[in-house]
């Protein structure tokens, strides 16, 4: 941990060293196995097997012949490939940025409040997320239409949109989708972060306060470093979700009668390649691209934040 000396010293004080050191270190795998057995068949059937199938499709052609990287080169040269990944990159950065800042910020704010106030707000924040993905996009279609939106003055003044077609102008889209995704997903993460903050022992906070730390110092220098791993976890999951954006642009495409291209995101492009062109191999190649991007991001975050590092 690279956090201030105060924090780590206190943290170690709270977890007596002897306790962990005394734990017998037997063979871990057999002991852990019963815990993951119920999950394992599902992981294999719905996670590993489709992934292997995609890998297989990505390096073969329609007749099953091995083609190496041909599908990857072919899809990369597709005129929709680069724009789709550009959209996704911009969208994911906007969304992840707001997600980290607001989720952590709001969770820290809530944690400092009295219990009842914070419970009310947690509930309020969670509410938009209770709508299932597609349904929330439908609600957002109304929100984005100045003719019917309760926030039409915002649309007029912030987006400069008098009409629905102006709300969803190409330049607005990454931000519009980021906003939709933020409001449907942030509530859940605020609850998770709040839970994470609750694991911080009271004594630590008390000790910090005695040492003269104000609420800001406590939030930024004590609580924030201690929930760093939860934040990393959120980033890994959200990064994968972000790069695999599908339902928002797909529904907006249909609602806007085609004003938004049906290959706006890379995942949509894969879908179109598979089902409009019957080119499952090219679609698999894009799916593998997304897998690699997600894995790279995960590895980077895991190694940088020490997500799986165990202290002691």
């Amino acid at each position, binding site marked *: 941990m690279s956090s201030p000396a105060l924090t780590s010293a206190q943290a170690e004080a709270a977890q007596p060293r002897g306790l962990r050191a005394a734990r017998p270190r037997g063979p871990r795998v057999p002991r852990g196995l019963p815990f993951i057995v119920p999950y394992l068949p599902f992981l294999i059937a719905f996670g590993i097997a489709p992934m292997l199938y995609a890998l297989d499709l990505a390096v073969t052609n329609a007749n099953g012949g091995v083609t190496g990287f041909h599908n990857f080169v072919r899809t990369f040269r597709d005129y929709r490939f680069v724009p789709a990944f550009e959209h996704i990159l911009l969208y994911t950065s906007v969304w992840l940025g707001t997600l980290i800042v607001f989720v952590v910020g709001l969770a820290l704010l809530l944690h400092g409040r009295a219990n009842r106030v914070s419970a009310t707000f947690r509930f309020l924040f969670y509410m938009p997320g209770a709508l299932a993905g597609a349904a929330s996009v439908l609600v957002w279609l*109304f929100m984005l*239409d100045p003719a019917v939106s309760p926030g039409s003055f915002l649309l007029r003044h912030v987006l400069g949109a008098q009409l629905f*077609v102006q709300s969803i102008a190409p330049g607005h889209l990454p931000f519009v989708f980021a906003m939709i995704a933020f409001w449907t997903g942030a509530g859940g993460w605020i609850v998770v972060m709040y839970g994470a903050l609750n694991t911080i022992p009271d004594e630590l906070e008390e000790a910090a306060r005695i040492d003269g730390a104000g609420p800001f110092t406590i939030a930024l220098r004590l609580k924030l470093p201690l929930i760093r791993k939860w934040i990393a976890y959120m980033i890994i999951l959200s990064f994968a979700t972000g790069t695999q954006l599908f339902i928002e642009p797909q529904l907006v495409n249909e*609602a*806007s009668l085609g004003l*938004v291209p049906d290959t706006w995101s890379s995942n949509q492009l894969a879908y179109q390649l598979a089902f409009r062109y*019957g080119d499952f191999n090219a679609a698999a190649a894009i799916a593998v691209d997304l897998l690699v991007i997600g894995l790279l991001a995960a590895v980077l975050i895991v190694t940088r934040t020490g997500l799986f590092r165990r202290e002691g």
Partner: protein
Amino acid sequence: MALRTFKGSAPQWPWSRRLRRTMLTSLVAVGLAVAVGACSSGSSTSSASAGSASGKVGGSLTVWVDSVRLPVAQAYAKAHPNVHVHIVTFDGDANGATTLQAKIQLWNRTGKGWPDVIFSEQVNDPVWMAQKPFDFAEPVTGLIKQSVLSQWPAPSTAQCTINGTQYCVQDNLAQVVLWVNKKLMDKFGYTVPTTWQQWAALGQKVATQHPGYVIGTSGESFSHWIYFWGNQCPLEQLQGSQLLINTADAHCTEMASLLDPVIKDGTVPPLSVFTPDFAKKYGGADDKVLMMPGPSWYAQAVFQATLHIPAGQMTAAMPLQWANETPVTTGQVGGGPWIIARHSKNLATAADFVTWATTVFNPTGANARAGYPAYAPLASKWLASLATNPYFAADPTPALKAAASLIWKGWNLVTYPDQPVWSNTVVTALVAGKSLSSLLPAFGSALGQAAQAAGYQVTR
């Protein structure tokens, strides 16, 4: 992409009421909006069709239809108790939805599940259905008697003919005419234009004399089918193995220059008639639609059901002529086909169904077919009852009938959807204030890319 399954003649769904109240008009595609006016099934003739070639009619039959064609399927089921009709409705979306492609790919991969008959709102669907990798459509020649097939107008048959074989029959014709609000035109003292030039000049006059009124729209996903198809702009013209896409052709640039001033002055706004914004600004009792070049099905689907323009105002005028060029040609938007699956185990019944739906089914009154029947003998009957329809300010049938044979033949149907290309390269930029003329090159290259991705060899 929710599928609704109906068995036999299920109760009617109050689509129109729901649609009217909500923003769904913008959520569903053009096609569903078309449905609005014509969703209630009525009494229909129950005589059996005599047009299908020999074969035993009976057993079970699965048909996929859009909501407008639901009454046809239900009426067939009622009239044919010996056929167990399983009806599935789906979204016939033109704007990027891939329901049918996705389904057919999956059926092909699993080797089962194909329906016997599909109705598609997309006039170009048979083109890809008849080819690899879909290989879905069965030729109709041989299944339906030649004497019956010959009653479809030649351009319609040509659109169903892929590589020399006829794979479908069109349910309706969707010829573009000039829809006119006779009441408003009389009130303002305007005469109905006969050429595009007169139409555009009148638009500029309207912009100053009666601002707020419109003479058309440029924001439909199919606006280029109205303006550019009608004016012989080669945007999808098959020349042997090559596909010609030439937005620099004079027929294209002239039309764009003609439209630019009227798009700019707001009389041809880049808005779709199916958006709540349009209905709010230009629809209702004090409607602001002075004229609108559009397909035959606009009467019920747009003016009556979507914009709620009162009866006694609208009528159809002849398609607009380009200056003094002859012959006059017009565009087309729609003309949905019926396709029989080559995987069907009950081809005789499938053919009987398609024949019945296109040549027999013709309810009257409020339940009348929304579109101009493609089958000529049925069209005459349909026109006769339309002529006395009190909704129209004047008899629209002469213009509709004349336009049916004026559809320009230089526009070929292609496997890829070109309409979303217009929407996302042109309409979005028109909304942002760009001129149509400046967008034509980008539109052409976007169409070219879409065509190449679909496997066409493109000539620009």
